[in-house]
Each structure stands twice: as structure tokens, then as C-alpha cells.
């Protein structure tokens, strides 16, 4: 397999959701490394290599999968901070949430999210979005475990 050029940071407080997302990514043939954090604060620490992630070596570009409702710092705040940070402004961000409130959706797009996907996930759409975003970031394709 080729080098994993894109790392996926998944911020999701619900273990089940995180598990399902990872299974579906894998099943869709996306073999990129997925790093799972439990809330927005940890996501920011990971991105900025602070706190528990201070020693992380930034070896690849990141794609963010953010849940909105999370303890401490929510997904929208992570998105806002990332977009406000000049060095991080280009990171692709997929908002992934149970909220389909049009205002919430609009707010996320205004803040600069790349894709907004409503759970329960139509995983096909989700995979499609991840792939599209990762196309130019050299997503590594692996054979699907299931069709």
C-alpha cells in the first residue's frame, strides 16, 4: 500500500458513532489513519500539538470529522478556531451531526465547513464526501471488505 498522505481526525464523543464511522470508512476502502478524540478540546490539542498531543509529529495533512454536540468544546467551536487560525484555515472539515436544523447547518457553512452531513448517516453519501474531499489529498484506496 502507498503512503497514507492524509490523516483523519475524528472528534466524536459517542463511542458507537465513532465505531460506525470508522467501520464505514474502512468498508468504503478508505484506509487512511483515523485518529479518534472524545471532544473538541482534545481535537484542538491534537491539531495544535498541545497538551497530551504536544509530542505529536506532524507527518501528514489532516481532514477533520467533527461532531457538533460534544462536551467541553463543541464541533462548531473547533471549526471556528480552525478557520480563524491562518495556518489551519485550509484544513477540510466535515461536520457530522444529528442536528439538521437549517440554522445550524447554515452557521457551519458560514464558518467554513466543507461538508455538513446529518446523522443517521446515509453512509454512502458520507463516504462520497470524504472521498471527494480527499481526492487531491491522495486518499489511499484499499479493496473494500464488503460491497
Amino acid at each position, binding site marked *: 500500500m502507498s503512503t497514507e498522505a492524509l490523516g483523519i481526525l475524528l472528534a466524536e464523543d*459517542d463511542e*458507537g458513532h465513532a465505531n*460506525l464511522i470508522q*467501520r464505514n470508512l474502512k468498508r468504503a476502502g478508505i484506509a487512511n489513519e483515523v485518529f479518534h478524540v472524545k471532544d473538541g478540546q482534545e481535537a484542538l490539542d491534537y491539531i495544535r500539538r498541545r497538551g497530551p498531543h504536544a509530542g505529536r509529529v506532524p507527518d501528514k495533512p489532516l481532514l477533520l470529522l467533527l461532531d457538533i*454536540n460534544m462536551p467541553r468544546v463543541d464541533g462548531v467551536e473547533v471549526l471556528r478556531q480552525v478557520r480563524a487560525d491562518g495556518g489551519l484555515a485550509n484544513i477540510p472539515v466535515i461536520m457530522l451531526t*444529528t442536528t439538521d*436544523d437549517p440554522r445550524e447547518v447554515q452557521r457551519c457553512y458560514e464558518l467554513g465547513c466543507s461538508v455538513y452531513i446529518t*446523522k*443517521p448517516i446515509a453512509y454512502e453519501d458520507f463516504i462520497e464526501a470524504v472521498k471527494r474531499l480527499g481526492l487531491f489529498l491522495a486518499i489511499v484506496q484499499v479493496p473494500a471488505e*464488503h460491497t
Partner: protein
Amino acid sequence: MRRANLTILKKGLILVSVPLLFQLVFIGVLVWVQRASWLLAGGTAVSFACAFCLALVFTRGISGRLATLTDNARRLAQGQELAPAMSGSDEITHLDRVFHEMAAELARSVAALRDQTTILQSVLDSIGDGVVVADEHGKFLLFNPAAEQILGIGRTDAPPEEWTQQYGVYLPDQVTPYPAAELPLTRAIRGEAVDGVEQFIRHAKMPDGVWLNVSGRPLKDKDGRARGGVVVFSDYTSRKRAEQEIRKLNDGLEQRVAERTADLAEANRELVQKNRENEMFVYSVSHDLRSPLVNLQGFSKELGLVGQDLRAMFADVGLPEPVQRRGLGLVDGEMAESIRFIQAAVQRLSDIIDALLRLSRAGRVEFRCQQVPVNGVVARVVESMRSTIAERGAAVTVADLPPAWGDPTAVEQVFANLVGNALNYLDPDRPGVIEIGSDNAAATAAPDGQNALQTYYVRDNGLGIPEPYRPKVFQAFQRLHPGRAKGEGIGLAMVRRTVERHGGRIWFESTEGSGSTFFVALPVAPGNGSREGCGPNGSPLKQRREGHVNGSAGHPAGRG
């Protein structure tokens, strides 16, 4: 009187006797000069004596009657009865008769005058209004008992400039002494007519004071010269107090109305707040439910996929036939069935939660109100249902529909729901007929001076709504014919919420077995100061009261 008589008698005697004396002296001189005969002298003496007697008698007759006349004049002056009328026909008798006539005339006049005075006096004594008359110098000529009773002080010798202080007269502010020059009686004396002047009277004898209503007129003599003034006044303290009481009550009433209004506004704010909280609650609960549901949904799908893997494994050759059969039986049978049930239940739960979210959003979504061409909106709705209409073989007629004021999307949803319901609940036993129209007469009837509403209707000849179900028509999750159409039973609940937020009303008439008519009244123009929704009534409280949804009461079922 006797002395007078004697005087007259003496005067009469002198009058008679003096000429006689002169005659006697003259005769004596004649006798002395001409030495007339004693006979002549004797005759003269006799005639003298006769003349004297005659004079005496005559004098006595005249002077007696004159005395009677004099006496009568005195009696007349003193109001006594006159002496009987004289008899005869001479001048004195005539004079006496005229005198008697005059006396009688005078007596009649005096009696009439006395009667009149008595009447006037009793009137002045008995009326409740105070009457005070003063001459041009301010001296009281009349001060009736009512005046004294009302003022608490009677007639005094005080000059006009002291009346204010003397009688304790104040301006209506009850503290400023009444300007003396402006007192109604003073003005009347000056020649002015005064009407309805309000005065307050308070002094030591009447510490609580009384209110007067005073009118005055100048008194003029027959030549038009001012000779004083008259005032008439009444005590209207009780009326004044009643007025003050009424004013106080009115003020109290206004105060209470203001308080009540404030209470209602507060209650309204609370309701709005509560409503918002409720919707937020529904919203957050729905989301909280959704999160585990995502797991159920996702992992049941995973189980299905695992089942497929297992199936592939069991189908693989190399396993003992009984194991393979048993394995495939479990995977395709019980396991697949369980997963199907789980997924069906999850899907149902998911639909309900989605419906709840839509419902809560119907109460939260912001309307962008404008003139809505209902004609176009309904045409789009009907067009979008073209295939269903054809499928059901229904005839849909749309009348010309006037525009409304509202959110175009929301209005479209309302009509889509109503027309969709009409289509869904047609009676399969007869050709379906659906009419969409407007009730023009209702546009002018604006309740409570609010903005006018335009009433539209969607009428069908479908199954109709049974009586027991009618109160529940607009409640969420109520489905009358669960098998006939998909949905969670929130359509009409959302429609009601939407219509009410527009400041409109929705109600229906229905006869089971012959069809239903749903009426929607929407505003025709922007409301005033509406914050929530965009109807004429800004407050949900008002909406609730005036836009009350009424299923059956007040709208008799059946269209005949």
C-alpha cells in the same frame, strides 16, 4: 275731633256773625244819623236774630259732614272701616261717595298685593335654592332661609368686599379665597349675568365645606338703571362628592385595567417563553433520542452485514452438512428476522423523532412574510400531486383565490397538507371531488378590529371525520386512517401551528360518509408590531384566544 268740630263751629259763627255785626253797626249809625224810628230798629234786631239762628244751623250741617270726611280719610290711612256713606245729593255727599269708591278700590289693590307678596314670600321660604338680593350698595334686601341654611351664615351688614371672608368663599381648588370682585353677586350688581359658577364654602360652622353652583342677574328699575343684583345658588355637594367618587373609581378602574393588562402581558411573555422552552425541550429531546438511535440503526445494519459474512461462511463448502444447514437457517431465519424487526422499529422511531423535530421547527422557523399569490401557490400544490390525483381518479377544481399575507413556503405547506389529506381520505366508493376556493364575505369580517382575514377552504367528498375523532384532528400523532396513507399524524398539527403563527385560524366542518371542509383564514395585510410569526396578532396568547382552533363546537358538522 271734638276740638276740631268746635273750631269749625267757631269759624262758622265768626263767618256769620261778623257781617251781622257790621250790619248792626251800620243800622245803629243809620238810626243815629237819620234818627229812624224805633220800629225800624226793632225790625232790624229781629232780622238780626233770625239771621244769627239761620247761620248757626247752616254752619252746623256743613261742618259735621266735613268732619266725617276728615275722619274717613284718617280711617282709610289707618286701614279702618269707613263711616257709612252719607245720604243726599249735594257736593259733600258726592265727595263722600267718590271717597268710598276710592277706598274700596284701594282695599282691593292692597289685598291683591298682599296675596302676591304672601305667595312670593312662601315661595322664597320654601324653595331649596338660596336666593339673595342686594341693592346697588351691596346691602342685602333679601336673604331667604335656604340661603342661610346653605351658607351656614345668614344676612349680615358686611360690605361686598368682606363677603368672601365673612361667608368663607373659596375657588374650586378649595384653598384660594374667592376674589371679592369676582363674586357672582358683586358681578350681578355690576350689571353682569353670571351662570353656573362653582364655589366652595367653608368656615368654622361648616368645616367640611359645601359646594355651590351660583347664578346671578342684575336687578334693574323700569328705566333700566342698575339697582342691585340677585343670586340663586344650590348646594351640589353630594353631586360633587359623587362625581369625585366616580372619578376616583374611574381612576381605580383605569389602574386596575392597566394592572390587568400588565398581568396579561406578563402572562403572555411567560407563555411565549414557555412555548419556546417547550419547543426547545422537544428539540433537544429529539436530538438526544437520535444519538442512540444512530447507534441502533448503524449497528443493526452492521449486524446485517455480519449476517451476510456468516452466510457466506456457512455457504462455503467444507462444513458438515447439518452444521451448514443449521447455520444458514439461523442466519437467514431468526437472525435476519430479528434484524428486520429491529430495523423496522428503529425506522419507525426515527420517523417519529423526525416528525417531532419538524413539528418543533414549525414553531421556531422564522417566517419571511410577504404578499402571497395563493392562486399560484395552490396551482403548484395541485401540480405536484398530479400523479396521485390521476391515480385516485379525483376531480380537483380551484376557484380564483385572493392573495394572503404570509410566508410563501409555509402557506404552500398548509395547502399541500390540506389538499394531500383530502386526496388521501377520499371515499373509494365514489368519484372523488375536491374543491379549493375562498370565502370572500369573510375577508371583511375582522374580529376585534384586528386585521382582516381571508378565508380559504379545501372541500372534499371523502370519508369525513367521525364525531369522536373531531376534537383530536389538530393534535399531533393522531391518525384516523393509519393504513391509508404514510405519515406520523402531525400534518394538521403543523398546519395549525403555522396558521396560528400567521395570526390566522383554522377549523373544519365534516360529516362522516359525505366529506369534510377545512377552512383556513389568513391575514390579508401585515399585522402591527408582530414579533412572532407575521400575522396581525403578535402574541401567541392572542392567537390562542382569537385564533382558537375549533373542531366541532361552533361549526356545525355537515354541509347538507
